[in-house]
């Protein structure tokens, strides 16, 4: 009996009128936990009842405490007929189980009904008394902290990062049970909500157990998803990163604050002394260089590592390379060995984190991803052939509704990711995430991450305390560029890439382009600002059933990945940038089409070489009209690049060979696309798409694909003045955030009226849809200018045939344009410290090795121009190869169930960056407070201008809303609009009841909308999550408990 749960029902307000005759309500409340139910007295004839009940006590196992929600039902008493339900409140009591989180839940909760929405509010008090449990074999994992935040939470430091934890649970979906035919929609919805709440509780408990086993005390980057597989069931799965977190004492926090560290700040200014300091290093590197790497050996290496029965694409970062600086060699090996042992003990060296304590991330290899197409089995239809699909999928001896099947599916994908990472010379995958897309019985499982080499210090026991002794094993690269240095062996590269010496430290090699799924490291050196880059793609497919359908989809996948990648690359070059962060590729499947959306934040990493331009080439020369046409397009592209350079303030330092004296390799870029598909590793086909030795990234205009590409390239409008966009946490180059944040969710659904659309027109429609959404945001948020739309998270779905749904959640953060440089510098230093929560000596270290490129090379004559570089893709030859390849695919169609793609981009280049993100602490205007606590929400892990002083627990909520009077509720837009507003309201109420005033790392994981306008019906499911926190303004030491304070913050929030 290890726990006692106590609940008290205080009062209700704004209740709906349940008795038409009196225009009043006779309300009472049922409080249920597990199988125990208590009732309050009836409070007659009032819309604002005061129950002021006794404390209802539930004596329960802590296992149940973790699994079950507290269920509060408000009813209207009726003497003659059955009592009518007004609505329900589910309270997740998990935050109370952790000593460091909330101690009491107290506040007004919206009373929610799945048919009517919010119907009044109820004031509830909940407490938990936990008894110590010494049982070693306990099933509960109380006390393990969960964070949605994908970085080490502020105020904590990671004593140890244990690694990947995953779990999934499966159940039948109540919506598809036989009983659903006879029960009301309300009962069915409530059964579903309750089941999912139970399942996520169980899942969290199981993950917690795994964490305890590993010796950790927290899960960071906790990502939970639902797969609504229809008749075959309901899957709730979660992944996360187990850590041992230590709370930083407030004293040390203050210390960091006041410590006069100007290291990062010095990056921002051009101190001439840096020139002298850095140039010897550059000289040191110069001697070694330059034998191009053979593609043959790399491909061999790759094939050895792949044992997957799938077409695999590998995108490389383009270019030829050279050998490495010698001095780094042995150290690197040592480092690798050490880390390897630390990581090899783990089955999957994956980390769901996207930003890391400084020094954690040593090198980044590139994006690795894997996809797999599966057929869901039908529980109720064994005749239709479980066995058939099993045979097909090669999954014998498992039944569909057992978690093992799904486990095995994911296991397979993870293995593949692991091997991809290995091929890149990396032993770990960071920024790891998994998702699914389901249409009827076909399911695409996807996983992606960034291959990386990590510092072993964090993987070993007691590592941080002896950080200084470990220092010698650390890679000597400066943190501003170290992560860009290639992790793989230069002489035995996994793919052909053009390597150059790092433009920052000049000691090690970097690739020319880098793609990652992680956030931009805070210490990375960046030139100019970044922007959101999206690749969008629609592909029609024939309607089909079962395996035919699955085959068709898996055949399409590699092409989609390839085209998305090409689009990204083109758009990156068009913006004159050389790296992508936060890359997220979503492929969504519908009955007659596939949608692909890749979003990332492009930046110019100072450490990497400048990107080449894009050159248009016509195949048939001689035609004068054609020539003119090409020239016109070329001019447009060149103009756009020039314009973008200005817009994003990309003015990289001009490097000169003579001045620096180092032989920077003649920039010659080639693009290579190369794919292997084989079941055993011996069959490798390679596509060399390079057009010989062309210097520019060439687009063949004769190719229809190319025309389309160019069109889509130029159609993207850059954001209007005053707006920046990114899908990462923050935007490089913007530091002085104000406290004004505006989080929003927007959903748009398009109906394709014309049945006979071509791929091309579909693409155009899809692109316009995304672009128009962005345009709408700019307009709506114009009062926030100057501002940056951060963490723009696009999700696409094909809810029905001919429908395209795009949902976006993001936050508009206003910044102060006119802040003085001086202030920015001081703030920068302090901020970095505080934000990274990381031992000071490392910071100091980083500062000494950092140097700004502009200062480094400022004295150098500028004769050698960094000539326009280019990588080329030959579409013509690609098409040819594709067709042969397709044939091959067709032959093997029955065995192929998976498309997997590995995207690797190489990069390199370093320079110190202005890493700090000073945020302004402008005192907010004060307005009168209201009785409702304002709760800020943001998808980011922080709120500008504030400090998180306490994490109160994870918010993970699932709601269903249904209506049978769609027209009366303002159509499907009105229905969804009020539902989203209701979801926000319920999240805010829960946070406020926990004593919090903000939600960080908020995300809307699912928004599944089904409508039937003819029947006047609609149903929607929404799943949201985030971390409830208490934050204070940066200058305050105490939490803002007083109403006035809260009023102030929110007022500032809304005032802009």
């Amino acid at each position, binding site marked *: 009996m290890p726990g006692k749960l106590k609940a008290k029902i205080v009062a209700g307000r704004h209740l709906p009128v349940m008795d038409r005759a009196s225009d009043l309500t006779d309300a009472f409340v049922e409080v249920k936990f597990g199988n125990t139910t208590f009732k309050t007295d009836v409070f007659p004839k009032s819309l604002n009842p005061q129950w002021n009940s006794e404390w209802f006590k539930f004596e329960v196992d802590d296992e149940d405490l973790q699994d079950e929600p507290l269920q509060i039902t408000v009813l209207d008493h009726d003497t003659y007929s059955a009592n009518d339900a007004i609505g329900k409140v589910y309270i997740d009591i998990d935050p109370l189980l952790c000593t460091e989180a909330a101690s009491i839940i107290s506040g007004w909760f919206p009373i929610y009904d799945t048919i009517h929405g919010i119907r009044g509010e109820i004031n509830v008090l909940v407490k938990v008394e936990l008894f110590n449990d010494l049982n070693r074999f306990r099933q509960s994992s109380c006390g393990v902290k969960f964070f949605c935040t994908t970085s080490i939470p502020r105020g904590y430091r990671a004593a140890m990062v244990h690694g990947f934890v995953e779990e999934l649970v499966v159940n039948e979906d109540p919506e598809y049970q036989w009983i659903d035919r006879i029960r009301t929609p309300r009962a069915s919805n409530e059964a579903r909500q309750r089941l999912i709440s139970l399942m996520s509780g169980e899942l969290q408990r199981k993950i917690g157990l795994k964490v305890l086993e590993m010796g950790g005390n927290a899960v960071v980057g906790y990502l939970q998803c639902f797969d609504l597989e229809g008749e075959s069931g309901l899957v709730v799965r979660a992944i996360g990163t187990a850590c041992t977190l230590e709370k930083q004492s407030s004293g040390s926090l203050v210390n960091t604050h006041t410590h006069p560290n100007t290291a990062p700040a010095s990056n921002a200014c051009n101190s001439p002394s840096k020139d002298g300091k850095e140039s010897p290093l550059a000289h040191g590197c110069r001697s070694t260089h330059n034998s191009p790497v053979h593609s043959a050996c790399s491909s061999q290496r790759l094939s050895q590592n792949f044992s997957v029965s799938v077409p695999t694409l590998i995108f490389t970062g383009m270019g030829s390379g050279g050998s490495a600086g010698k001095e780094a060699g042995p150290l690197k090996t040592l480092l690798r060995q050490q880390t390897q042992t630390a990581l090899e003990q783990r089955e999957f060296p994956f980390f769901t984190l996207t930003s890391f304590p400084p020094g954690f991330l040593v090198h980044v290899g590139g994006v690795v991803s894997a996809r797999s197409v599966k057929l869901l089995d039908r529980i109720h239809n064994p005749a239709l052939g479980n066995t058939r699909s099993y045979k097909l999928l090669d999954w014998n001896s498992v039944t569909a509704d057992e978690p093992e099947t799904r486990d095995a599916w994911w296991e397979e994908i993870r293995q593949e990711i692991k091997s991809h990472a290995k091929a890149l010379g990396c032993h770990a995958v960071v920024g790891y995430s998994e998702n699914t897309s389901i249409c009827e019985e076909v399911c695409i499982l996807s996983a992606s991450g960034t291959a990386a080499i990590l510092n072993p210090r964090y993987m070993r026991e007691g590592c941080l305390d002896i950080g200084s002794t470990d220092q010698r094993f650390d890679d000597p690269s400066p943190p501003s560029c170290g992560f860009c240095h290639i992790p793989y062996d230069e002489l035995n590269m996994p793919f052909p890439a053009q390597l150059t010496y790092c433009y920052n430290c000049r000691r090690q090699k970097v690739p020319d382009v880098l793609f990652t799924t992680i956030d931009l490291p805070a210490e990375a050196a960046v030139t100019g600002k970044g922007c959101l880059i999206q690749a969008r793609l629609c592909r029609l497919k024939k309607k089909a059933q079962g395996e035919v359908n699955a085959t068709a989809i898996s055949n399409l996948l590699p092409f989609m990945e390839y085209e998305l990648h090409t689009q990204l690359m083109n758009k990156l070059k068009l913006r004159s940038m050389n790296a992508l962060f936060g890359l997220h590729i979503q492929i969504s499947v519908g009955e007659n089409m596939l949608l692909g959306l890749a979003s990332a934040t492009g930046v110019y990493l100072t450490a990497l070489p400048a990107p080449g331009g894009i050159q248009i080439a016509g195949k048939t020369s001689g035609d004068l009209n054609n020539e003119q046409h090409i020239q016109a397009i070329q001019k447009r592209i060149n103009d756009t690049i020039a314009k973008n350079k200005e817009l994003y303030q990309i003015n990289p330092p001009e490097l000169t060979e003579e001045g620096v004296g180092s032989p920077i390799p003649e920039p010659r870029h080639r693009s290579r696309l190369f794919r292997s598909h084989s079941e055993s590793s011996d069959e490798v086909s390679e596509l060399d798409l390079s057009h010989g030795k062309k210097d520019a990234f060439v687009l063949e205009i004769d190719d229809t694909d190319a025309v389309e590409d160019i069109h889509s390239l130029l159609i993207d409008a850059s954001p209007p003045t005053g707006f920046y966009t990114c899908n990462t946490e923050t935007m490089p180059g913007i530091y002085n955030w104000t406290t004004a944040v505006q989080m929003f969710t927007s959903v748009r659904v398009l*109906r394709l009226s014309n049945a006979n659309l071509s791929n091309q027109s579909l693409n155009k429609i899809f692109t316009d849809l995304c672009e128009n959404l962005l345009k709408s945001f*700019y*307009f*709506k948020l114009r009062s926030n200018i100057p501002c940056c739309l951060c963490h723009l998270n696009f999700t696409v779905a094909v809810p029905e045939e001919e429908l395209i749904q795009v949902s976006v959640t993001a936050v508009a953060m206003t910044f102060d344009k006119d802040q003085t440089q001086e202030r920015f510098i001081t703030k920068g230093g302090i901020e970095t410290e505080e934000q990274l929560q990381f031992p000071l000596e490392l910071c100091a270290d980083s500062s000494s090795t950092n140097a700004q490129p502009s200062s480094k090379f400022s004295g150098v004559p500028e004769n050698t121009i960094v000539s326009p570089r280019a990588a080329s893709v030959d579409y013509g030859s690609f098409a040819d190869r594709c067709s042969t390849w397709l044939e091959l695919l067709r032959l093997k169609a029955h065995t192929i169930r998976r498309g997997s793609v590995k995207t690797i981009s190489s990069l390199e280049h370093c320079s110190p960056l202005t890493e700090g993100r000073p945020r302004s602490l402008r005192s907010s205007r004060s307005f009168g407070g209201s009785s409702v606590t304002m709760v800020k929400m943001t998808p980011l892990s922080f709120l500008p201008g504030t400090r998180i002083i306490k994490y109160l627990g994870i918010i993970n909520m699932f709601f269903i809303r249904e209506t049978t009077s769609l027209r009366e509720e303002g159509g499907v*837009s009105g229905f969804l609009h009020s539902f989203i507003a209701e979801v*926000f*309201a319920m999240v805010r109420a829960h946070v406020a009841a926990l004593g919090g005033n903000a939600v960080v790392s908020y995300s809307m994981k699912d928004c599944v909308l089904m409508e039937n306008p003819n029947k006047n019906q609609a149903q929607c499911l929404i799943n949201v999550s985030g971390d409830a926190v208490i934050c204070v303004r940066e200058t305050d030491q105490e939490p803002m408990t007083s109403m006035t304070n809260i009023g102030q913050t929110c007022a500032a929030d809304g005032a802009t």
Partner: protein
Amino acid sequence: MAVELDVFVGNTTIMDEEVYQLWLDGYTVNDAVKVRMAGGMLDECEANQDVLLSDTMDQYRTFQMCERLLQSPAKLANQLLFQIPPHRQTMLIERYYAFDDVFVREVLGKKLSKGTKKDLDDIGAKTGVTLKSCRRQFDNFKRVFKVVEELKGPLVENIRQHFLLSDKLARDYAAIVFFANNRFETGKKKLQYLTFQDFAFCAGQLINNWTVGAVDNTVEDMDVDLDKEFLQELKELKILITDKDLLDQHKSLVCTALRGKTKAFAEMEANFKNLSRGLVNIATKLTNTKDVRDFFIDLVEKFIEPCRSDRWTSADIKLYLTHYTNSAHILDSFKHQAVWDRYMGVIKSCIYKMYHD
């Protein structure tokens, strides 16, 4: 390619004041888009018509969802559905309860009943206010009327607290409620030149001086109903015109005081008896509900019109009424000084306000 669904929801509810006004004014979404386009919104943030349409639709939906809360503004502050900073809430309420002077002028003093509501389309057509906006304004009047009807305490304060309105707007509503309750006639042709603000001022004077609440602030309806006792006492003033000596005495006192101070002296002297009879007759008849309703028309007919035809200036009116009121105090046989002051105080300020040069 039809947009099937398009929503944008902010954690802090985004409301554009301009669109809010268009919504309040009863514009349809399409008309609102046209107005916004004409207003140069297209130049902002590279917007196009679709963007404007989508934004306008979103905002209209938000306002519609908010409308229920705006109808009982106290709820807006402690509801959980929309996170709206307090100063924005104040703006929303204030604007929702704002009304068009031309519209209120039409319904002022009318019974706030279904019958009147049926005539709203005519009023809309006459005043150029959209029917939707007319309905909102009318329903607001009715709602405020219903709520304060049953409340004790000062009228203006009650309105202010229940509807969270500014002092100015609360006073205007008090006037509307007061007029509706006493059914003052304001629609006659002769009264057309008077604005709502003229009437609102007079209502304020009446509420502050002639109602029960002016002497006792604990009774129900204290500020809505006129003080019956006072109205009864007004009958005593009749002596000022029935007693010939008193009338002459009064006249000579006033004329002595006025002589040489105004160009209109001759007319004042000639009209004194007429005017005095007019004002005192109004006072003595106020016990009849019918005559209360005609209070303003009587003031105009019996006093303002004669003066205007003689081309008195506002200053003349002021001068005349001051001496007219004060001289009564010197009359030895006139014993009703208190009632006289209470009566003339209001009459004086009402006439000042109603007399337009």
